[in-house]
Every structure is written in C-alpha cells, then in structure tokens.
C-alpha cells in the first residue's frame, strides 16, 4: 500500500504541488489526468525522490518517510520498492536489451547472473521481444524501446510501477503496441500509477482516475464517475477540451 500525505513541492518561488494526498491500494491501477503543467510528472517524481518534495510524507509498504528528514539510505530503500517507466524510455544505451533488464536485478537486488537472465527472458517473452535480447537500444524502434523500459521495471517486481506518459514520445502507429503491453501486465495485479493523456486507455485500464489541476487533486473516483459524471467544472472543461466527441451526463 502507498500513502502520500500533504506533498508540497516548489521550484523556486512557484509552488507546483500544493498538498497532495493519495492512497493507493495493492493492485490499484490509477491514472493521473490533468492539463499540462498541473504537476502530474512532478508528483510521480516525488514518489521515488527523483524530485525531493519540500514537505509531506511518503509511505510504501513497510517504509514511511518524512520527506524533510529522508536520508540517502532511506531514499534508496524507497526506490527499491518502486520502478519507473519514462516518457523518453531512458534505456541504458551501452547495454543490450537483456542487460538493461538484468542490470537492476544484479546490482540492486543482488540476484545471481543466471537467475537475472532467467527473469529477463521471461519478461522479454511477455513483451514479445525475445528475439531482440542481444540488440542494443539504438537498434530498436521507439515502441520496442518503451516495451523494454516496461520489462525493466516489471522485472524488479516492485510494489508499484510509475508511468510518466509512456506513449507520448512515440509515433502514433507505435502507441498501440505499448498500450497493449501495459494492458497485459495490468491484468497481473501489479500496482500502477500512470500519468497519461490517452483518455480511452485510462478509462479502460484504471480502477481509479485522479484529476489534477494547479498542483492539487481536483477530483478522483472510478473512471465511470470521473468520465461520465465529473463533478468539478475544471474536470468538465478538461474532458470537454480533450474529448470533444465524448458526451457525458451533467
């Protein structure tokens, strides 16, 4: 279980997160929606301390941290419970596809090379890239790279996988293959928090939608509630703008 309490984050004088509270249960698939600049990425990055929040607390599984007093060791311990899939994939360029997946297993989780390779191969089968095990990232398409990014995260068997717009750097024709992989692993009961602009995908996959605007959570609920019956004007506006063809009851 994940609990975020009162997360505040400022860059210089601008406060980007203004006290975010969020609870995530095991197996939850949460999509965070919201207009550009609303703080979605920042929130995600605060969860694994790629961005250090100014205030608040983060609890994942048996680790609970007050962000102000988190030590380097705390942060590494917390990161071991999470994994992240990046918009720009961020694969290790000098490692093969297989090594990208085994790297964390060997270095962080101290698994044997043999065990790590076994896990990596299982993951590659899952994302349909067994035949690319020995390829370098530079030889893959964007869609393939992102699938490897997902496999790398999944292999760590984390408490939660954080996705930051996993398809928005992709050519439109490659979006589908990546979303399909996420759909597939969603069925396995892995907890996921997904920042996305893919509305249909978010509605299909999530059991909860969080709508953010201006650094606060404006509204949250089941996809049905939020998409069909948004309560706040800002949510309505956002959905109207993004899905003009989509009609919802007022």
């Amino acid at each position, binding site marked *: 279980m994940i609990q975020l309490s009162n997360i505040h984050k400022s860059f210089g004088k601008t406060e980007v997160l203004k006290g975010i509270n969020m609870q995530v249960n095991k197996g939850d698939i949460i999509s965070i929606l919201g207009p550009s600049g609303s703080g979605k990425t920042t929130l995600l990055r605060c969860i*694994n301390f*790629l961005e250090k929040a100014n205030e608040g607390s983060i609890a994942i599984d048996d680790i609970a941290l007050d962000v102000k007093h988190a030590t380097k060791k705390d942060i590494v311990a917390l990161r*071991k419970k999470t994994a*992240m899939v990046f918009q720009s994939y961020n694969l*290790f*360029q*000098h*490692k093969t596809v297989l090594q990208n997946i085994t790297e964390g297993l060997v270095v962080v989780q101290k698994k044997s090379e043999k065990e790590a390779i076994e896990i990596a191969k299982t993951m590659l089968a899952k994302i349909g890239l067994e035949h690319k095990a020995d390829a370098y990232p*530079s*030889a893959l398409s964007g869609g393939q790279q992102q699938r490897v990014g997902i496999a790398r995260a999944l292999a760590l068997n984390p408490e939660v996988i954080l996705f930051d717009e996993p398809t928005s750097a992709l050519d439109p024709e490659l979006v589908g293959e990546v979303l399909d992989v996420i759909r597939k692993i969603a069925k396995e009961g892995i907890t996921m928090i997904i920042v996305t602009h893919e509305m249909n995908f978010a509605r299909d996959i999530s059991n909860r939608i969080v709508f953010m605007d201006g650094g606060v959570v404006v509204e949250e609920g089941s996809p049905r509630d939020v998409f069909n019956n948004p309560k706040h004007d800002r949510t309505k506006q956002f959905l109207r703008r993004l899905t003009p063809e989509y009609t919802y009851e007022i």
Partner: protein
Amino acid sequence: MGTFFEPSLIFTSIPKLLSYLHITIEILVLSVALGLLLGILIAVPKLYNVPILKEIMTVYISFIRGTPILIQLFLVFYGLPVVVGLFGVDITRMDPFYFVIITYTLSNAAAFAEIFRAAIKSVDYGQTEAAYSVGFTAWQNFYRIVFPQAIRVAFPNIANTSISSLKDTSLAFSIGVMDMMGRGDTLISATAHALEIYLALSVIYYVIVLIFERCFKWIERYLNRYILKEESSL
C-alpha cells in the same frame, strides 16, 4: 660534425636506439595511467561544483594548458625539491625519471580532466534517473552507467593526448633521463653524424605512433559497438 651523409648509419643505429624504447614506453604508460586517475579526481570538483576546489582546478588546468611542457618539466625538476625541502624531505638526488613521470602525469591529468568533464556531461541524464529509479546508488550509477559511456566519448581525445604525450617524452632527456633521445645524443657524439641519427629517431617515433593509432582505432570500434547508424532507428 660529419661531413657527408651515410645512410647505413640510419639502419645500424635503429637497434641501438630501440634498446632504450622501454624507457619511453614506461614514461608514457605511467604518465598516461596516473594522468587518467588524477584527471578524474580533478574533473570531479568541476562536475559537482565544489566551491574553492573547483576554482583551484580551473586555474591549474589553465596554467598547464598555457605553458610549454618543457618549462613545466624544468619547474618540477628545480621547483619540487625546493617545495618538499620545506618539509624537510630531500629529493635532490631522486632519479630524474621520476620528475619526468610527475610532470607528464600533471600535464596529462589537466588535459584528461577537461576531456572527462565534457564526456561525462554528454551522457544523457535520463539514464542516470533511470538508474536511480531502479535503486542504484550515485556510485553504482557512475561506474556502471555513466562512466562506461563517457569513456566512449572521451576515448578519441584521450588517444590524441596520449600520442602527443608520447612525442613529448622526447624532452625527458633535457633533465638527464637516458631514453631514446638520450641514447641518440650519445650516438651523435660518437659518430659525428647528427642527421642520420635524427632520421632514425623520427622513423622510430613515427612507427610507434602508427602502431598506437592502429590500436586506438580497434579500441574505438569496440567502444562504439552500441552506436548504430542513427538514421536506421528513426
């Protein structure tokens, strides 16, 4: 002074000169290896913006760049004994070989530091974030992710600097180190034929440089193994 040109002298002197090749290679290998280590240490304060140390390193690098290596050699040779003498250590009788190693190490380190700094900066920060997100420590990220890729970028420049350094080793003789140049000088005195000896020396240096360049090319190809023709992946 010899009065006429004697080509055979070029060939007969080559083996005599080559018997001192190991000194040249020792100077080169030691000063490059130590220079690499020191270079990384010098690059760190600049990369991580450590106050004061960063400024010291900047001045150091700019001084080395702005002065001829021959002068640096004399500064170390005459200056170092004075400096350590202040601490009651007498190194006036130290083998000049070590002064050469120290000078070239200091000089190479300055060049390597700048090369490393640029190379480390060139590695996309996203990969560092990915490593952190997986649970890497800063050190694990550095030696497993950033450094191996920085080396690829740095290597051609390191190779060039090393080749210049190989040629600079010929100055070691100026403070009395008996290397190929030193041996050449005694041969000139003994035969009174300077041109032939210098021709022999230039052939030797040139061939060594060619061999080094070939080796560096192989290494470069290996380091570039994961870089594909960018166009094909787009």
